[in-house]
């Protein structure tokens, strides 16, 4: 049995300083945001807010200075994410680039790609989306079929991506396509590409390049994700990220960044905040017990998530630990609405009623997706079982 460890971590002093700066900034730029909007957490997007963060040097802050970064430690970035999430700041526009696309390009991109695609991200001017899932490829990502056929000077793309968050607004997509078929090994023959969807002025490039985006309403009625169809879309050779046919291992490395961050347990934090306020007004022993229990989980998850950040900072590969954090984090995020309904007699509403009712109405619905996005609960538990030596 492989053992996992969640060692205590000491944050560097710079992290505490930055935390104070972030709080000051949020007081100025986020104070008037309504609880319901805050509850959107990292899916709430506001390009204007992203530009303000960019001006502070807070996007891509761990990246090398020559690409617009600040060469901060990953703990400082971690603290920044925490403060933004707890405040419910609209960080969604730049989130994906900061978390995974930027690091991907730093790891595998060409110098030319880094020069072109990273600095605008740090300024909060270039937003990304991720084209991995397809109608027939969800958990079984290796079954991706959208094809990149080699032609003179580049590739022709045909096929369909789905659930692509922010594809309608993003400037850039990091996409996973099939560059060859290998009957023996499905993991072979996948490649990653960087796809321009908008130019630097924000003008749409998609349709003229054979890329068609259709928004898909979520059950909340929001247009968060999209279907993206490629019809003979041409990508130059320079769009290939990393090595051809080797996309699978790159994607696996990319997903490891995705699993243990504070966004994996803080997505329902606004409801916890509303519950504490409500309990103050109408105290009850059951209420205290329920809130205390939730805060015990919160404290624990934070300890775990910070510990994984420590491992990432030390260059370790905490795949098992990260999956544990995400599994527990989603359970936590999802049970909060139910508990809120148990201890307060409130009805969930849509945009009217008290803040508690509104946030509840949003999160009851939205939280079902928290154990799907970024790897389903069952897939994560499969990873954990493998770590335990059962697979």
């Amino acid at each position, binding site marked *: 049995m492989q053992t996992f460890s969640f060692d205590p971590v000491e944050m560097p002093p710079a992290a505490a300083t930055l935390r104070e700066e972030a709080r000051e900034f949020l007081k100025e730029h986020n104070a008037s945001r309504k609880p319901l909007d805050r509850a959107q957490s990292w899916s709430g997007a506001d390009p204007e807010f992203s530009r303000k963060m960019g001006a502070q040097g807070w996007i891509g802050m761990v990246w090398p200075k020559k690409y617009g970064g600040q060469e901060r430690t990953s703990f400082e970035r971690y603290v920044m994410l925490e403060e933004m999430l*707890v405040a419910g700041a609209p960080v969604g526009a730049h989130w994906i680039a900061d978390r995974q696309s930027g690091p991907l390009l730093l790891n595998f991109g060409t110098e030319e790609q880094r020069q072109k695609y990273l600095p605008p991200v740090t300024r909060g001017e270039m937003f990304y989306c991720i084209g991995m899932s397809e109608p027939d490829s969800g958990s079984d990502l290796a079954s991706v079929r959208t094809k990149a056929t080699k032609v003179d000077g580049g590739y022709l793309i045909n096929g369909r991506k789905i659930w692509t968050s922010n594809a309608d607004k993003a400037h850039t997509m990091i996409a996973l396509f099939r560059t060859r078929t290998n009957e023996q090994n499905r993991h072979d023959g996948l490649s990653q590409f960087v796809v321009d969807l908008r130019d630097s002025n924000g003008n749409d490039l998609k349709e003229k390049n054979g890329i068609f985006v259709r928004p898909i309403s979520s059950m909340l009625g929001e247009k968060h994700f999209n279907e993206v169809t490629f019809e003979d879309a041409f990508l130059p050779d320079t769009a290939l990220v990393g090595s051809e046919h080797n996309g699978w291992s790159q994607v696996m490395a990319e997903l490891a960044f995705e699993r243990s961050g504070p966004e994996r347990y803080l997505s329902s934090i606004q409801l916890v905040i509303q519950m504490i306020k409500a309990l103050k007004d109408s105290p009850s022993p059951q209420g205290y017990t329920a809130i205390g229990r939730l*805060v015990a989980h919160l404290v624990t998850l934070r300890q775990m998530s910070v510990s994984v950040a420590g491992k990432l900072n030390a260059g370790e590969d905490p795949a098992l630990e990260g999956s544990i954090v995400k599994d527990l984090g989603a359970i936590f995020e999802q049970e909060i609405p139910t508990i809120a309904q148990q201890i307060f007699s409130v009805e969930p509403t849509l945009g009217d009623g008290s803040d508690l009712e509104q946030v509840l109405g949003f999160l009851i619905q939205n939280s079902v997706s928290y154990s799907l996005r970024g790897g389903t609960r069952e897939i994560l538990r499969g990873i954990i079982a493998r770590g335990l030596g059962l697979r």
Partner: protein
Amino acid sequence: MSDIRKMLAETVNRLLADIVTTEMLVDAEQGIWPKELWQAVEENGLTMPLVSSDNGGVGCTWLDAMVVMHGAGHYSAPIPLAETILATWLLDQAGIQPPMGPLSIASGSESQALQFHQESDTWHVSGVAKRVPWGGQVEQIVVTGMSEGKLRVGLVKQGNFGVENSQNMAREPRDTLTFDNALVSMTGIANGLPENAVSVYGSLLRSIQIGGALERTLSESVLYANDRTQFGKPIGKFQAVQQNLAQLADEVAAVGAASTAACAAIDLAFSSKEEVDSLFRIAAAKARASEAAGKASSIAHQAHGAFGFTYEHILHFSTRRLWSWRAEYGSGDFWAEMLGRRVVEIGADQLWVHLTATD
């Protein structure tokens, strides 16, 4: 991990893996004191890691000492090792050099605290303390009570109080001790410790031990699932079993982290000039650990089938402890309610500030 922590972990795990046999556990349930086990942990310096150099100790941190208690929980060590660590620390906090030998701790109940009184130049204690771990077997008991608004810590020798034997569900001794003007051989004031220190830190011992016992149920379950074959393959190859054991691993990980957070907060509270709310994290740890104890025990038993339901199989030595420990020194709900009250007092807007203040 610090070097000392690594060394302690290595020592406790090596010793206990070696000495704590099923036979010893069975004997201990019949009230037989495992003398050689106690000797081994004492000779290897595991019984008073928290005692400062002023009082003849090595002054380890709670994070260091945690690995010893964790090991005790993992191997179901049938001795008051965690209790002795706490008892010696309480003595140390009161400026008393702790004696060798097994110790336990007693404080009476919340409504009926032990009462200290002075007669000329000797101190005495009166009152009843229920469910004291190994109360009738240890050589001395560390008692606590209030005197002049501060926590008084004293040492009482076996023989100076009445003992009524009982056990918890895991058949660990949990005795009722009656102090009737019992002679206190040494005593001092522990500044900086709260009135309910025994219950607060006792709950942390149990959270840490629960973490150890959970780890054992996980490793036993994985071992068993890879070994037991049904339908032509090890049951661990079935996805349903895998998914359950993954959740068991989640719980193990969470409890370890929760106790780690609590120990780190205590260490900070004792090393920092600023006020640190370690009680917040201690309460969180017990709430989290108690919840995990139930969930994890049922997963482990489910994976073990009927074999795990027998006395012969070792699983129950861990799970019966888990069910007992989650209730001792305050149930999960007890601490959750306390924490909830504290959270409301802190306020929704300050909660996060409070949580990050100990970084």
